[in-house]
């Protein structure tokens, strides 16, 4: 299905690549140039721009630009995600990290945990944490104040997170008993998360590259920043990881995607190895 793409000249590709990079930190390498080419056609068609140069100009136009920039982000981001994605990561949380946080904050008058699912896409990851916390705390959860910030740069996915409606394919790793407990079936293939989960999850827009946009999430106990660093170049990755370190409370944990590491970035993180999952502790 290569025909669907828009062949970009080297100069066009570079202009677009640099523009996207400056605004979002997402860096399209030569290797995933094709990915950009397939996606950009849609935006060129919609805006009626003849080539990428004209499109970049359009983006720079202060009136039309802001809205189109969001559209561009929505188009070029890869939003693949699902509930209980990555079994080993889930069991590290379930068996270790969540019980540890719960034990740590189980004090009269405190009982508060804040989680940040940065780059949460359509919210599956955030709701998964909500389920794990509910399973751990059971009835006691009513005495806890739980906040799970679900943020992303892409408005479309944030809206889906807010709606909390999912197809069964997103739930393929959730056991029937958990589905029963935490979802309402709205039709044959649509499941809505129940209100008690929704109350914990707070969707918000946040560009990880932009420090101002991240400051609202400081002092969290757990950061999930999974499968997003791959889109950043070394420099942005460094900045984002430093920001995560600063935003985390002492003793808090950060998880990256399964094959991602923080190697090469000097931070105060300690690497904690769980069975087939790595976390970083402050």
């Amino acid at each position, binding site marked *: 299905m290569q025909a669907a793409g828009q062949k970009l000249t080297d100069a066009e590709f570079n202009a677009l690549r640099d523009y996207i990079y400056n605004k979002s930190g997402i860096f399209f390498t030569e290797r995933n140039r094709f990915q950009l080419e397939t996606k950009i056609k849609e935006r060129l068609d919609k805006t009626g721009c003849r080539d990428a140069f004209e499109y970049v100009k359009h983006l720079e136009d202060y009136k039309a630009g802001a809205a189109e920039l969001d559209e561009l982000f929505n188009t070029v981001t890869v939003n693949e995600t699902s509930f209980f994605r990555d079994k080993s990561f889930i069991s590290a949380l379930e068996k270790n990290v969540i019980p540890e946080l719960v034990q740590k904050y189980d004090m009269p008058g405190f009982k508060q945990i804040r989680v940040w699912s940065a780059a949460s896409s359509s919210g599956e990851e955030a709701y998964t944490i909500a389920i794990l916390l509910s399973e751990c705390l059971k009835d006691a959860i009513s005495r806890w104040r739980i906040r799970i910030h679900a943020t992303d740069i892409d408005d479309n996915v944030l809206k889906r997170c807010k709606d909390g409606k999912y197809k069964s394919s997103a739930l393929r790793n959730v056991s029937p008993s958990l589905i029963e407990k935490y979802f309402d079936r709205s039709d044959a293939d649509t499941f809505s998360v129940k209100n008690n989960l929704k109350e914990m999850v707070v969707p918000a827009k946040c560009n990880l590259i932009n420090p101002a946009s991240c400051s609202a999430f400081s002092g969290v106990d757990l950061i999930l920043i999974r499968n997003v660093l791959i889109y950043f170049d070394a420099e942005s990755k460094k900045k984002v990881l430093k920001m995560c370190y600063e935003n985390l409370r002492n003793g808090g944990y950060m998880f990256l995607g399964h094959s991602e590491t923080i190697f090469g970035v000097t931070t105060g993180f300690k690497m*904690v*190895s769980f069975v087939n999952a790595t976390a970083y502790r402050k």
Partner: protein
Amino acid sequence: MLITNFKEKVYNCIEFLPPIPDIMKELNELLQKKDCDLRDISGVIEKDPSLSLNVLKIANSAFYGLPYEVSSMERAVALIGLQEVASLCMVCNITDILKPEPGVMTMDIKSFWEHSVATGVIAKIFCKEFNIRTQENLYLAGLIHDVGKIIIDRFSHIAYDGIIKATHDENIALIEAEKRIIGESHDRVGGWLIEKWELPKVFFEVAAHHHSLMDASDGNRRAVAIISLSNHIARIKGFGFGGDMRGIILQETDAFRIINAEYPHLRDQDIARFVMDLDRADNEIAGLERMMNAGSRPKTYRR
């Protein structure tokens, strides 16, 4: 259920194990000699035909990646090395000796050997990756580091079952559960066995001190540390034995510190990546484990 006179009772249990075959003693003696000869070694091994067969089978496996199939012991020794062949012999013998009697309830022997093989393979890959020189046969050291578990299980399968269950229920280390439930631990028991078998001292120390590195002798501490670290990594890679799922900061273990003291460059390595990339060793580990279990079994053995 703390057991009184545990050592004495376990010793009795060890008495009932077949002794380590003379051929192993002969091999060990030969290996200690400075100028030992290919032909001497292969001669000794060939005295035991079923042993030779198993060694050749393993030597020809993908693990060693030989360019062509070898059919003579002398070629095998020449290609994969004296130490290596000697340890293959040892492996074949040890799995044979420790093989459960038919019909007797035992712990999960397959995952036990999988963990042991993984520890040995990881130790080898670790040293290669980070240029750590070792004389010791780390693969063999990895294989035998936990033999004490088999002995305790044989002594009382019910007790060991309880120990393993506790690790799952409480997410604790096996050794903690052992100490609490029977008041002894597999490292000490393993040491007793290896001592009785009169294997080289480094194997005794690996078995006896892989959880207490400071008790190892200066000469062998590094080898013990490498096995100890590989033991942690094996668990992290999903080749654990028991239900301990806790996280570990590898860089803060005694094992890492000891190795790092001699190899300061280790601090700057991407250990997370190394651990991830070990996925590539999965097939090797599974293959070796299968061969070991199958190789040492009499023909009647069926899965």
